[in-house]
């Protein structure tokens, strides 16, 4: 996919883009842009390898236009025109996705949804209605001011959007208590081909057939464009307890958390760092250095939280290390700078999140680390466990390396990913816990889903028979 600007613009088009543009400009007027700066800005998302290309002056792809809808009607018009003219459409939220899911591979039109940003709180129903383009920090700030929280804090809270969260099945750092976005979505509105606005109403529960809302959760823009969502909110927590522990082994820490959850306690934050990451993040805390560090936050109604804190303290086998490491984590949790520091000088660095049941958790950790390190050029590989369930755990791996002589950044990058995905599948894990599939992970999806892959493809084409919705993303 690495091409220069000129090469990208000369590539064959899909559908009748010229006619589509005339029609869209008539309907959406100045909400359509074909300015080169805009086309360039939507040529990538936060897929790491696209930045390596960018630094070399190569772009993965360029759209023919970008549109900025301001209403659902604008979105309906866009989907209708795209469907009629067979032109690809790529929904775009904050562009913080890390797998190339918004890269306009086949040219066509990127639909930036950030101008759909209205908000409304329903206090009695503990529910908020949000335009798909509402910024993450923005919705949380709006709710906090009124005494509520969403409880959804992905590390990309600041750059991502509500629609993007639902589309990628995102999860926040406080997930062990509040769940992933799938646990918060009550209803949604989406525009699907050939240009229909559908609504799945925000009932507390409904048994009207299979849960169609879930079809959109994690759909990454391949079925349609979400314009609005209804999400659960919670009262702002009354009390918060910060705890940390040093353990001798990863197994011991994992086992402690498993017992805590199986007793029914639900700490909001639980993060277990392997030895490397404990040293990396908590080097100032002697009691944690060289050990397995765990940070835990328990919060909510103060009586309930106190009881949960007691369970945590009773079940966690390790040496308590106090509140300070947790405070440090809270202070630094949005401090993202490694990519900016290392990528420009040719270091390939990325993260990979997978999930596995408790019974194979330690095995998966060992296997993936070993697999990544076995690739020539890898300099470090580490992980922390960041999201927890009664049944298992999410591991978040980080690797960094320098392509060996004769290998491009892309080749090295793919080799490490291949090794990690293979090890995950062989260890009984799932290849993605929350970043999704995008364009990068699509080559492993069929193996994970088996025959269900064909079901997914059929659903996609039943809704979007001309394959105009984010073509090439997730399914091929």
């Amino acid at each position, binding site marked *: 996919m690495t091409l220069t*600007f000129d090469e990208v613009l000369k590539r064959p088009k899909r559908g009748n883009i010229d006619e589509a543009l005339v029609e869209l400009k008539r309907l959406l007027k100045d909400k359509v842009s074909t*300015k*080169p*700066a*805009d086309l*360039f*800005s*939507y040529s990538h998302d*936060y897929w790491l390898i696209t*930045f390596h290309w*960018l*630094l070399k*002056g190569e772009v993965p792809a360029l759209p023919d236009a970008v549109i*900025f809808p301001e209403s659902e009607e604008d979105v309906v018009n866009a989907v209708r025109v795209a469907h009629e003219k067979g032109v690809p459409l790529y929904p*775009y939220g904050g*562009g*913080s996705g890390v797998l190339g899911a918004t890269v306009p591979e086949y040219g066509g039109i990127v639909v*930036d949804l*950030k*101008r759909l*940003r209205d908000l409304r709180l329903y206090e009695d129903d503990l529910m908020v209605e949000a335009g798909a*383009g509402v*910024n*993450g*920090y923005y919705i949380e*700030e*709006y709710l906090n*001011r009124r005494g509520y929280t969403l409880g959804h804090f992905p590390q*990309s*809270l*600041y*750059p991502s959007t509500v629609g993007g969260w639902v589309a990628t099945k995102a999860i926040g750092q406080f997930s062990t208590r509040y769940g992933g976005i799938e646990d918060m979505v009550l209803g949604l509105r989406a525009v699907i081909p050939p240009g229909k606005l559908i609504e799945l109403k925000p009932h507390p529960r409904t048994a009207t057939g299979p849960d169609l809302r879930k079809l959109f959760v994690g759909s990454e823009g391949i079925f349609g464009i979400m314009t609005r969502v209804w999400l659960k909110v919670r009262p702002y927590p009354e009390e918060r307890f910060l705890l940390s522990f040093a353990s001798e082994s990863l197994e011991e820490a994992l086992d402690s958390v498993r017992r805590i959850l199986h007793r029914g306690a639900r700490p909001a934050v639980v993060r277990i760092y392997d030895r*490397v*990451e404990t*040293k*990396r993040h908590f*080097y*100032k805390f*002697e009691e944690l250095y060289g050990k397995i560090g765990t940070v835990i936050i328990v919060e909510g109604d103060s009586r309930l939280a106190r009881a949960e804190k007691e369970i945590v303290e009773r079940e966690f086998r390790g040496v308590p290390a106090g509140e300070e490491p947790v405070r440090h984590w809270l202070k630094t949790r*949005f*401090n*993202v*700078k490694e*990519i*900016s*520091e*290392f*990528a*420009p*000088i*040719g*270091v390939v660095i990325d993260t990979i999140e997978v999930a596995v049941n408790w019974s194979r958790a330690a095995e998966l950790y060992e296997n993936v680390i070993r697999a990544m390190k076995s690739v020539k*050029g890898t*300099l*470090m590989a*580490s992980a922390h466990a960041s999201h927890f369930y009664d049944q298992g755990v999410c591991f978040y791996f980080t690797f960094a*390396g*320098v*392509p*060996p002589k004769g290998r491009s950044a892309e080749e090295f990058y793919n080799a490490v990913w291949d090794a990690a995905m293979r090890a995950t599948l062989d260890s009984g894990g799932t290849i993605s816990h929350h970043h999704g599939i995008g364009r990068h992970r699509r080559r492993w999806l069929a193996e994970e889903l088996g025959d269900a892959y064909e079901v997914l493809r059929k659903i996609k084409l039943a809704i979007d028979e001309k394959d105009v919705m984010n073509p090439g993303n997730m399914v091929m």
Partner: protein
Amino acid sequence: MPGKWDWLKDEIGFSNLLTGGRMIFKVVQGKLSADDLTKCALCSNMCRHACPVSIVEGRETTSPAGKARIALMIREERIELNLDNLEPLYTCLGCDLCTPYCPFEFSVADLIRPVKEEAVNMGVVFEEFREVFENLETSGDVYGNTDSGADGSGKVLYFRGCTVRNERPELAEKTLTLLEKLGYEAFTISETCCGLPAYNLGNTELFKKVAKRTAERLNAAGAELIVTSCPSCAYTFRVLYPKYGIKLKPQVLHITELLGEVIGGLKLKAAEAVTYHNPCKLAVHLGRRGLLKSLLENVEGLEIREPRRELFCCGHGGSAVSRLKPELAEEIAAERREQLRDGAARVVTACPSCELALNGDGLEVIDIVEFLLERMEE
């Protein structure tokens, strides 16, 4: 205590140092580093939520990292230096609300400035800015009006600034009244602009020219202290002039800073609720984030309601957006009004541009000077 990078040394190990590890260690030791614009361009926009343009316009191209990417591409000559491509760079309010969220503490406005300077040097300038440059060149006033006021003399010089002189002359009167009540015999002179609009628009040469002219006048007035209504003027005098080697003899204070020193001695009473709008130049660039609120806290009986967001530009900062994209500036102002309405319908601020931008639409915005005068009179 172990060092920040010890984990990396342990992990990479000696054998790997012979291969790619060397590269990483050079970064760690500060011997190898990308330039700041590149670093910003490679960020996932972790400050996007704090950027008023980003929130309101919602366009990737004008997000903070988006601007850095465009600037980088222009600098590297991968995209052309033309008005179309420059437009995103001028869609910056210069508020630096991005800076506190940046792990490197970058100011995006500063990072992209060299590209703007290059554009001005090459004569690639928006029509909308030419008038500003001409006005500053000929009359020394952004609006093109020559200040025909007489030159006074004394210890305290009150510098009104272009906006107050042209748009809010009553505020100048009231500020002089307040200063008098506080025991300062302030005087004014026929003014020229501080030069900030030229600086903001990338015309650094013109900025230096205007600034030198203004500094000469101010120095010649013989005052010991300059008090300004406009935090931007105070910032320019205090921060930019020294940066460009322009010497201003008197000390410079924004009116709120002077008030901060004396307000404890005043008897101020109120029975109402207000919220406050912190001007970016005061709160961020002069580092006086809590000052406006603390002045209000001296008013007995006053209920101070927090705005939904403490800091958010009024949309008229940076000189460019309101000229190039007035609808966007107005949209940002409308968004700010909405946030302020979460607090109270009466808003106290400390910048004439913010006041003008935010007043109306069910919101009464009042300068701190006028507000305190009212409270003193009652």
